[in-house]
């Protein structure tokens, strides 16, 4: 049995886990349930030795353990199968299974024969009928997952953690996976199963543990709880922000999206977005909610012209159909996108605050058609540093030296400088402190008061409820609900976001 006792974990001051205690039983499928950011991944990373700094104690088969790294955890018999699979694509199935644990003969030379034999045996245990010499690139995602399980079996893992194992595989592959999970369960292995799909959980899991905001909320036998009770446990938290009433009434239509679909760039049959249509009005804030992998970011990117080759559908701005095949065309149409990851997608970290702010409108800051107007640029930067209260000693400081909240304000400034009509915000408050959050909400309110329309993607329900005039909910690439703010509750939104069939 794997037991966590009073585990707490902080990331630079932010609490990820707080006093979490739970038990994971052998011979059972233990479901870990919770919203995005509830602390599931952090906890699994502690179990699998990725995070080694934490408070509390882990008891493994009655003994107190503290893993010094992933190899240590693996040696103890804990294997994790990540959502993004961790195989080396250009090596063969057998090479991947034995990676880091190769079988060698007395001379220290690889014993190919023994490995192939062992691999064949392991593959048959996971019902994967491919040759051990197949390159991993030639396998489908579901098959790659089975290779990972084979790898865990070779390590003789007694605890196998599966993070969203069915998020990217077909129904048939899911059936096979469940068959294997039952088999492993029968062998007395502890299966830890993380998933958003309630139907799956009720079909597969024996026990549940609910995490919310980094705390363990409840646990028990799956057969003793109903779907609604489970959702209740996942969301039942007090509102930390005041719910706002909608102020939008009969305003002009700003953005109209019709039948947007997006194909997966590699697996062409998979649709990342399926036939999405909605409208955004002047002065309106739409909160876009969905669980991981629902397609929220992809929708924003498609509207912003980042997937010209794989997407279909129609986008109209102020009633006029616009061809948007690149960010440049999106900007021209009056659309701005503040991306999810400000460091990777939003900022040139090495450059000054000033040149980051002016980045998207340099063509408007030119003199005589070829030279930048330094004075105009200085004024622009000063204006936005002032308006958004960006805390810095100088506009020429490098963006990397600022705090997360202030960095986010720089990205916002860059986009406000383009004078957009439509502002797309993807997780605008992720990883920033509570004061900066409040400032950003206030800014959003004042922007829509000036006639802008905003779509805010967020994983935080309280934030969605506090800021939005209307809530759109996505699940697996589809729009599943459009709820006026007056009728929106956490439970209702989450119900629409969770996969049911």
């Amino acid at each position: 049995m794997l037991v966590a006792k009073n585990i707490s974990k902080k990331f630079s001051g932010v609490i990820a886990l707080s006093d979490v205690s739970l038990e994971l039983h052998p011979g059972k499928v233990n479901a870990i349930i919770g919203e995005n950011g509830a602390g599931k991944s952090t906890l699994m990373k502690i179990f699998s030795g990725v995070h080694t700094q934490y408070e509390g104690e882990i008891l493994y088969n009655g003994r107190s353990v503290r893993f010094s790294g992933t190899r240590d955890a693996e040696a103890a018999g804990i294997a994790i199968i990540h959502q993004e699979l961790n195989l080396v694509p250009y090596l063969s199935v057998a090479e991947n299974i034995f990676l880091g644990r190769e079988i060698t003969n007395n001379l220290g030379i690889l014993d190919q024969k023994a490995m192939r034999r062992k691999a064949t045996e392991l593959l048959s245990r996971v019902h994967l009928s491919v040759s051990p010499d197949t390159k991993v690139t030639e396998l489908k995602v579901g098959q790659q997952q089975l290779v990972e399980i084979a790898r865990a079996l070779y390590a003789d893992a007694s605890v196998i953690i599966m993070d969203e194992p069915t998020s990217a595989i077909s129904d048939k592959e899911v059936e096979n996976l469940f068959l294997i999970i039952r088999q492993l369960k029968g062998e007395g292995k502890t299966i830890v199963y993380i998933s958003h799909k309630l139907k799956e959980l009720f079909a597969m899991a024996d026990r549940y543990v609910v995490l919310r905001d980094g705390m363990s909320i409840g646990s028990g036998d799956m057969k003793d709880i109903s779907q609604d009770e489970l959702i209740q446990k996942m969301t039942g938290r007090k509102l930390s922000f005041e719910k706002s009433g909608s102020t939008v009434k009969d305003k002009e239509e700003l953005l109209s999206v019709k039948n947007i679909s997006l194909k997966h760039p590699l697996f062409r049959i998979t649709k990342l977005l399926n036939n999405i249509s909605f409208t955004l009005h002047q002065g309106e804030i739409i909160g876009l909610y969905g669980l991981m992998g629902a397609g929220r970011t992809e929708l924003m990117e498609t509207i912003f012209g980042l997937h010209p080759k794989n997407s279909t559908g129609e986008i109209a701005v102020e009633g006029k159909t616009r061809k948007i095949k690149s960010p440049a065309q999106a900007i021209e149409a009056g659309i701005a996108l503040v991306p999810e990851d400000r460091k990777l997608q939003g900022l040139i970290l090495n450059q000054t605050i000033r040149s980051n702010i002016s980045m998207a409108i340099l063509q408007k800051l030119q003199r005589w058609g070829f030279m930048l107007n330094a004075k105009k640029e200085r004024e622009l930067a000063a204006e936005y540093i002032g308006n958004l209260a960006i805390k810095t000693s100088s506009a020429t400081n490098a963006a990397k030296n600022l705090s997360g909240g202030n960095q986010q304000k720089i990205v916002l400034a860059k986009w406000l400088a383009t004078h957009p009509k439509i502002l797309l915000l993807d997780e605008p408050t992720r990883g920033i402190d509570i004061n900066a959050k409040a400032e950003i909400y206030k800014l959003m309110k004042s922007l829509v008061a000036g006639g802008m329309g905003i779509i805010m993607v967020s994983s935080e329900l309280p934030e969605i409820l506090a800021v939005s005039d209307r809530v759109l909910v996505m699940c697996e690439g589809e729009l599943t609900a459009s709820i006026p703010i007056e009728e929106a509750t956490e439970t209702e939104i989450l119900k629409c976001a969770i996969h049911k069939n």
Partner: protein
Amino acid sequence: MIALASYKKNISRFQSVIALFILCIVLGVLSDKFFTAANGLNVLRQVAVNVCIATGMTLIVLTGGIDLSVGSVLALCGAITAGLLKNGLSFPSADLFVGFTILGAVLAAVIIGALLGSFSGIVVTSFRVPPFVATLAMLTIARGLTMLYTGGHPISNLGEDFAYIGTGSLLGVPVPVWIAAVVVLIAVFITRKTKLGRYIYAIGGNETAARLSGIRINKVKLTVYAIGAALAALGGVIVTSRLDSAQPNAGISYELDAIAAVVIGGTSLNGGKGSVWGTVIGAVIIGVLNNGLVLLNVSPFWQQVVKGAVILLAVIVDKAGDKKE
């Protein structure tokens, strides 16, 4: 604290200048011929071609790219200049002959250089071939075209007027130095004062963020490869003029000297960080080092070893500075 930080920042910015200064003092002490006006001009004349090429290389490296083909492009465009000057263009079928003035031949060479660079740029952007491979291919292609064009023989005796470009002086300063100075000033202007310059740094600093900001990445990359090759062509004109002959083997390994100047000058091969001024200092450091070692009668074999060591040293010092930040 802030004052100290900016003081440190300035130190690292002037690192290469300080290195050059120290190098000059040491050489001045060791050799009494070093600090003479004639030697100074000599060094500048020798580095002028590398400064031209390395300036273009800097723009490319700032975007995160590289161009290995500059030496071959230099040879091809030098040969074209010489060929056009000497033989003009004749179209026997149309009974047409076009003669070229010096300016015409030089312009033609530079335009052809820009076209070769654009070709590399298209391969890099539209076909997503890594710059290293795309320009390695161009290195071979351009060298082969040079051999085809010249038949493997030098094209010589190009006339005294043309020789002025490579050997003449204006106000006591060699013409190649004037050319390099103009090239550098324009490049400094572009990098510091224009939209294109900003985009170059932005793409090298964070290509994703640049693309999301509506910057047309492909256009900018194509432009820098075109500029880089055009400047290599200009280098070809100078070399051809100085020797009064276009050599089919001209420019071999010049790309390495150019990259060395860029790196010693503090430009990051990952892009986004560095400057044209730094590259000029880098090129001069290499020139001074070559010159000083000759003056000190150090064997040419050792010169190569020393040059390599200096490149390593420059990069290691630069990395150490990065870490501290």
